């Protein structure tokens, strides 16, 4: 997954990826929740044909053709929202060839374009999303009001309809208790920080998602640069705290134990995995563990239950998933056959 490549030059030690999501609707057409499946399908066909006509290399996935675990796996990998995975009628996913742009059709809004970039490069993600938006603009009439901006089903997204986010790995700030004060600090600045995986209220593997809440009153580029600036400040703080943290022998012991466990374990369960990978990632970033940080980033996503079902090509028992998870870790991180 290119979007999770390790790029230290863009603060990849702390920030796994950046994303920009644009919510757009077609004027004079009810929001998806008010449309029948054939009406939604007509939108899917129209959007897909406009993108093809614009020469953009895209592939379409009819969500109703996927097994439930395949749809959930896409949500686990952050490509679609959990809501989009939960119901399939009249929904289509359009993906760019390189996988860096995904377009959900008929989620909350008619069109939701999400572009991803590795580490802290939200401006690059915005540029990619805008390419697809521009291809659609003109061919489709976007629902827009000069005072309210882009009209979205959820009034919270009115305005630019832009959601900028970054996924941050904050093991040091979590352990010294700074994260709880960060939550209130960023909320005062119109942003939020939550767990990056699952229900977003619980935090797994010290992974957090920082995102903007303000969509009216600032333009797209300001939203992108504000988020970048906040992510950078958090990353700098995490980096400084992590350098201190790894000097502690107790912490180094935990990192080494995690490495020992993951390199030899025959069963790794879904709760243990993110905690162990978080320690391993911390060790890898600071040269304590000889594993590839980009691979650890990827495994954080792809070792979740539905993703493992996809690897196996069908639903596995919990025990079989734990076995497969352990096997993939040993192979991908430690070269075991």
């Amino acid at each position, binding site marked *: 997954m290119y979007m999770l490549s390790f790029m230290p030059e863009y603060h990849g030690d702390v920030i796994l990826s950046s994303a920009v999501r644009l919510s757009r*609707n077609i*004027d*004079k*057409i*009810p*929001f998806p*929740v*008010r449309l029948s499946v054939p009406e939604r399908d007509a939108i899917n066909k129209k959007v897909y044909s406009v993108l093809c006509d614009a020469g953009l290399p895209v592939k379409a996935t009819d969500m109703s053709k996927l097994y439930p675990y395949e749809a959930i796996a896409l949500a686990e990998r952050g490509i679609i929202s959990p809501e989009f995975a939960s119901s399939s009628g009249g929904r289509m996913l359009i993906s760019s060839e390189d996988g860096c742009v995904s377009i959900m059709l008929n989620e909350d809004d008619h069109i939701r374009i999400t572009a991803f970039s590795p580490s802290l490069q939200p401006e690059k993600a915005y540029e990619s999303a805008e390419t697809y938006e*521009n291809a659609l*603009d*003109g061919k*489709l*009439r*976007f*629902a*827009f*009001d*000069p*005072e*309210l*901006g*882009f*009209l979205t*089903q*959820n*009034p*919270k997204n*009115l*305005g*630019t309809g*832009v959601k900028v986010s970054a996924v941050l790995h904050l093991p040091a700030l979590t352990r010294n208790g700074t994260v709880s004060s960060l*939550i*209130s600090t960023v*909320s*005062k600045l*119109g942003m*939020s920080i939550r767990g990056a995986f699952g229900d977003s209220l619980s935090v797994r593997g010290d992974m957090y998602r920082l995102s903007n*809440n*303000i*969509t*009216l*009153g*600032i*333009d*797209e580029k300001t939203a992108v640069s504000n988020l970048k600036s906040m992510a950078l400040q958090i990353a700098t703080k995490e980096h400084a705290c992590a350098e201190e943290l790894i000097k502690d022998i107790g912490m180094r012991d935990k990192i080494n134990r995690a490495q020992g466990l993951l390199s030899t374990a025959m069963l790794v369960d879904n709760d243990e995995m993110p905690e162990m990978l978080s320690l391993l990632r911390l060790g890898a970033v600071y040269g304590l563990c000889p594993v590839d940080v980009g691979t650890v980033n990827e495994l954080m996503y792809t070792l979740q239950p539905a993703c493992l079902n996809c690897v196996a090509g069908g639903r596995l028992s919990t025990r079989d998933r734990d076995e497969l998870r352990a096997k993939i870790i040993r192979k991908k991180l430690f070269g075991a056959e």
Partner: protein
Amino acid sequence: MLCQNCQTKDAAVHLKQIINGEAIELHLCPDCAAAMGYSDMLGIFQLPFGRIFGAAAGKQSAAPEQHCPTCGFTFSDISHSGRPGCPDCYRFFADKLAPSIRKIHGRAVYTGKIPESAGKGAQNERRLRELKSQMDDAVRQQDFERAAFLRDEIKDIVGKETNG
């Protein structure tokens, strides 16, 4: 002070939020504060729109309800579901939705990208709004030469729009 929402009980919860750069003050009774989701301060950005729209709907008269010409939604439907039925609902129920939208976004004005599909009219509207604001500033600063220049520019744009 009475609760801003129910106007019957005393306000005991006083909130000040900064949304989109604008400070909004809310004075609510404990019941309304809890009903509107303000009991959890960390969830301040998860406003319950259904209940906010619902509160506005409660004040409506018994006159026959108007339906959005595009999707057929009434304002009660929006209040009940917490979401408009289509983009046109925002235009058709603009006055009724405005207070709820202000609760979320403050008095912020849209400054983002204008899509090509919105046409030249939307571009001109933005330009006129900017010029009028600059002209007001110039008058306040008694820079009448600049104000006159801006007035002419406004006239020019309006003239071009009128002549098609």
